[in-house]
Each structure stands twice: as C-alpha cells, then as structure tokens.
C-alpha cells in the first residue's frame, strides 16, 4: 500500500547568532493508511519538531532546510501559508499537549467545532451544529447537546482534551499528529483518552503520528515506533520488536531504564550522561559518548539505518563491514 505520509531525509535548522543549529538531521519515515506510528525520545530529541514540521507550524526562525514531506504522494513542505492552511485541519488534524491553549477561550466549543466543520466541509450552519454535537457525543462528553454551548473553561482537563480530539477529527482528516496528547492528564483520565483515540483511529481508518515520551502509551497504542535521539532516528520497527528486543544501544538503554511496575529491582539500568545540546552534537554517532558498545568507527562516521532483523537501527554494530561485529541481541530489561 502506498504510504499516506512520507518524510524523506528531513532537515530542520535554526539559524542563531552563534551559528546554525540542526534540530532534525536526515529524518525519514512513512505512515501507511490506518497506521499508528509512535515517535518516542527524551526531551530535545526532536520528536515534537518533526510533528511541527509536518503540519507546517515550525516556530520561526526554524525552517525546513532539506528533504521532503509528502502527503498522498504530493509535497507539502514547500506550500505557501494559505495552501498549507487548507490542508491543516482538512487533511492533517493536530492534537497538542495542553488542551487549554489549543481552544479559544472566547468562543464556545460548539462555535469552534462549527467553524472548523464549515470551513473544511462547506456544510450549512444547522447541519454543522448537528455534526458538532455528534462529535462531542462520539468523544464521550455527557449531555453533548447542552455542553456544546459551554466555554472551554467550563470543562475539566480530561473533558477539554476530548473536545480537542473532536476538533482535530471533525473535518475527517486522514492523518492526525498528536503531540503528547495525554501528558498533561492524570493517569486514570489518560487511560480514557488513549482508549478513545485508539478506538476512533481504528473506526475511521485514520492514520496517526503519536509523539510522546511515555513508552507505556506507545506500547498500548502504536503499530510501529520510531525512537529519536538528538534529532535523528535511532531505531524504527514494529512496536513489539522495539520494546521487547531493542537493537540500538540507546533504545535498549531507554527501555531498560523504565522503572517496571510489576517488580522491584535493586538497581535500575541507567544511561550515564545526558543528551547532547544541539550546539554540541558529537561527530559520528550522536550517542557515542554515552554508548556502552562504542568503537572506533562510531566516533568518526555517522551511522545510517541498517536492517537488523525485524527493526532498523542506526548503529554500526549491525554493519558487517564494521571491525566489531554485533552481539546476538542487546541485553535489556
């Protein structure tokens, strides 16, 4: 099946007074129709930046400096603002972390939904309002017919995030970019919202790019996952493989450092050090200063994504041409 979204060798730069910072460097992935791609990484890995680049909302002075973004085979990274505005909402819906800043506090949620539906689907007022109420019901807002005339501040955090989901879905986009959609929510509410997102994506056949730092959310929701580190993709593959049998030393370390809920461990696995700043990304593999498996080639040559069985990892351990050969599997857990 042709991918719905294809990102090819994406590069995002931030020109600053002290030189150009590269926030994303050679990021490539694709999302098939109906597929949920999880994008994980720690703060500063570039996962939100990737989402922002796709929906055309990079904060200036950030700019796409290379590569292509294709939606349904057509480039969208070089569109004018007005053209992109039509795609945003209609073709790509967006859900952000903080529901309060996504909604306009001066309009009722109904007005905001109706505006979106009318703009993108060209329905008349009464029909749009009926749809708006239908969407509120679908995302599980009780007494939707009354609540449609409420203002965002009259909803609780969890309910507000449901409204945001309705707003992202109401123009029936093919792709949803969800950036930390449950991070601001409490765990009992988070479970409700994840179940909702997952169900709607499945029922409507919507593709989703789910950006989060929470591996648990990814494991429960995504089909495939891309692990990002310092603006690059470290590993990508089916979610089960990446979580259970991570190949890249960074993904292995990341999975191992998650405190388990089902047992107590005396000493948690940890990755020493911290992610490099954008201004000081090391030569070769960006992970080399923290990597337990580092060898000479990692210090000079940047790894490309290499097939490692079920996943692809950007790690020289998996290149037959490397001096040092890959171990059977990375230890984890």
């Amino acid at each position, binding site marked *: 099946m042709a991918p719905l979204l294809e990102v090819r060798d994406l590069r995002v730069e931030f020109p600053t007074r002290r030189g150009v910072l590269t926030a994303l460097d050679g990021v490539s992935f694709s999302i098939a129709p109906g597929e949920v791609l999880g994008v994980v990484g*720690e703060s500063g890995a570039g996962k939100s930046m990737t989402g922002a680049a796709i929906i055309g909302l990079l904060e200036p002075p950030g700019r796409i400096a290379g590569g292509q973004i294709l939606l349904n085979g057509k480039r969208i990274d070089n569109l004018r603002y007005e053209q992109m505005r039509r795609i945003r909402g209609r073709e790509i819906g967006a859900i952000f972390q903080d529901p309060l800043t996504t909604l306009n506090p001066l309009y009722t949620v109904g007005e905001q939904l109706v505006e979106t539906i009318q703009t993108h689907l060209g329905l008349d007022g009464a029909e749009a309002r009926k749809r708006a109420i239908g969407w509120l019901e679908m995302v599980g807002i009780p007494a939707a017919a009354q609540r449609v005339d409420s203002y965002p501040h009259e909803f609780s955090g969890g309910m507000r995030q449901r409204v945001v989901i309705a707003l992202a879905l109401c123009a029936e986009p093919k792709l949803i970019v969800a950036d930390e959609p449950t991070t601001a929510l409490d765990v*009992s509410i988070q*479970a409700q919202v994840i179940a909702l997102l997952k169900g709607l994506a499945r029922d409507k056949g919507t593709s989703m790019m789910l950006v989060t730092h929470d591996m648990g959310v990814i494991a429960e929701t995504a089909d495939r996952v891309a692990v990002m580190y310092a603006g690059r993709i470290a590993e990508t593959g089916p979610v089960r493989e990446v979580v259970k049998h991570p190949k890249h030393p960074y993904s292995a*370390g990341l999975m191992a450092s998650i405190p388990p809920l089902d047992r*107590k461990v005396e000493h*948690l696995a940890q990755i020493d050090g*911290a992610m490099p700043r954008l201004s000081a990304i090391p030569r070769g593999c960006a992970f080399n200063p923290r990597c337990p498996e580092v060898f000479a080639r990692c210090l000079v040559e940047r790894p490309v994504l290499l097939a490692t069985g079920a996943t692809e990892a950007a790690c020289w351990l998996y290149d037959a041409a490397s001096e040092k050969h890959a171990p059977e599997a990375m230890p984890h857990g």
Partner: protein
Amino acid sequence: MAETPILEVEDLARYFDVSRPWLQRVLAGEGKRTLRAVDGISFAIPRGTTLSLVGESGCGKSTVARLVVGLYPPSKGRVVFEGMDLERARAIAEQRRRMQMIFQDPYASLNPRWRVKDIVAEPIRAFGMTPGAAAQQAKVAELLTQVGLSPLDGEKFPHEFSGGQRQRISIARALSSNPDFLVCDEPTSALDVSVQAQILNLMKDLQARLGLTYLFISHNLAVVRQVSDRIGVMYLGRLVELAPAETLFTTPRHPYTRALMEAIPDLEMTGRQRIPVGGEVPSPISPPSGCPFHPRCPLVNDRCKAERPALIPARAMKQGLTACHAVEEGRDGGVPAAQRIGTTATAL
C-alpha cells in the same frame, strides 16, 4: 522496629480559604468556601525507611510534603518530628538542620545567579556547621563527588547543567546540613526516563550509605514501587490505603488503588482491553459526602454515600490499612488471587 519513628503525623489537615472577596461574596449572597487540601491523615515513618505518597493531581500529596517540613502550618492535627512537636522542633536550628527538602523543578529551585559551590554551601553557612573557608570548600567538594558531580563543577552556574545534573545539585544542597530526613516532592517528574533512573539509583545509594529517611511524593506508581518500603495512596486529601510496598502491589485492596494500577499503560502489550475508571476527580472544594471515591466506585452502596470510611486494617490481610466500607464488609470479592501485576516482561 521498636524505636520511635522519625516522623509521626496525626490527623493532619490543611484547609485553604478560597472564598471570593468579601464584597463580591455579599453581593452574590454566597458563603465562604474552603478547599480541604489535606483532610485528616495519619502515618508514621520509621528511621531509615521510605514512605511514599501517591495520587493524582489535587489529591493533596504536595501539601502534605509542605506541612511536614513546616512550610505550611496545619489547620488541624500535628506533626511530630523525633518525638517533638514540629513547631517546637523548627524553632531549634539543630532540629531544623535535620530535615531538608528536594523539589520537583530543578530549573526553579536553584538560584541562577549563584555559583553551584555557593548554593551547596548555603545550608553549611546558615547552620554554622563548618567554620573556615578551606574546610567549607572541602565539604562542598565532597558533597559534589557524593552525588556524582566533579568538585570543579562548583565554579559553574546552574544554567550550565542539564536537568538531571541540576537535580544532583539539589540533592547535594539538601545533604550539606547532614540531614536525617528528606522530603522529596516529585524529584524525578521533570526528568527524562534515562536520567530519572540515575537519580533514583543515587537516592537509593545515599539512603543505604547515610541511613536517610525519605518521605517520597510522586504520581508515578512504577517509580514508587522501586523506592518505597511503605506506600500511602491519597485521594481528595485523604489516605485511602496504606500498606507495605510489596503488599500494595501484589494485593491492592481499595477500589481506587486497583483502578489506578489498572489504568497505567505498560509494556506488556497483552492487547488486553482496559476498563478505565470512569469520571474524574471531584473538586476538593465540595467533596462528595461519605467516601470521596464513591461517585466513581464500582462497589458503591448507600453506606458509602453517607458515612466516611476510616483507615482500618484491611480484612483478611496481615498488613495494610484500607479506608473502604466494601473491603471492611467483604463486598470486594476478598483478596485478589492472581493480580495482573506480577506477570513478567519475558512472557512472550
């Protein structure tokens, strides 16, 4: 343990007046409004152990942390530190030195204009512990080494450090007055997961080495399991369950504790359909009558709506306290036999 606990909390409560201004109140004809952030909780922490308080936002866990170190005076009840009423203990520098706090946000809790060595040395100076500049410098170097930083880092400013390193500085500062008791309010919540593991390991090592006692506040059950000896689960300002860590995870009794554990997304990928707990946390300004959890509880009956359950030993259990009528009456189906928690990650 026969010796007295380092900290005891008895029927502690803290209310906040959240009324509107007097004139508006009179015009609207409404009364005063009180937010019951913490509403009558009791616990004790034996020396050298960790008690964790978990709960969702607004359950009052951070307010407990602040009450325990004396940042808020209690509205009711009392805090006893080393057998001495907290208010009296706080008036004595020697007692004050023995309790310290680590805050959540390492970006907000370090003065950006001070060098790290001055930040770490401040408690030493304030308590007049190590006279002489050279001795002080040596102590700071020792503290920085202890938390995994270099003594040379003392010359730098906080902005030169990452979040995890800043939290190490916070810990070094807290340790500089040789405390016995540390209150840690979400110490790893602002950190990335690989860095969180570093800080949790460090805190465990320090506890083993220095015999520290921790009150650990967190919303993350998995983190809490790794560090705690005992765990208290809070809901709307009250303790709903208090049990040894392993007991709580293997046999959670309170319906809220069970719901919380059920809701956490895990890495097991069993494809199991979750049954999320319905509804949301009610407002602590007008909490529900009786048991605060009753509007969301699957085991609710009339008694739950009318009568507030007390925290009592859980039925059919050797350890653990539960505040639940259903558990007391045996309406909860008894001790859960096979909990999902306890399965291992390798079962593929």
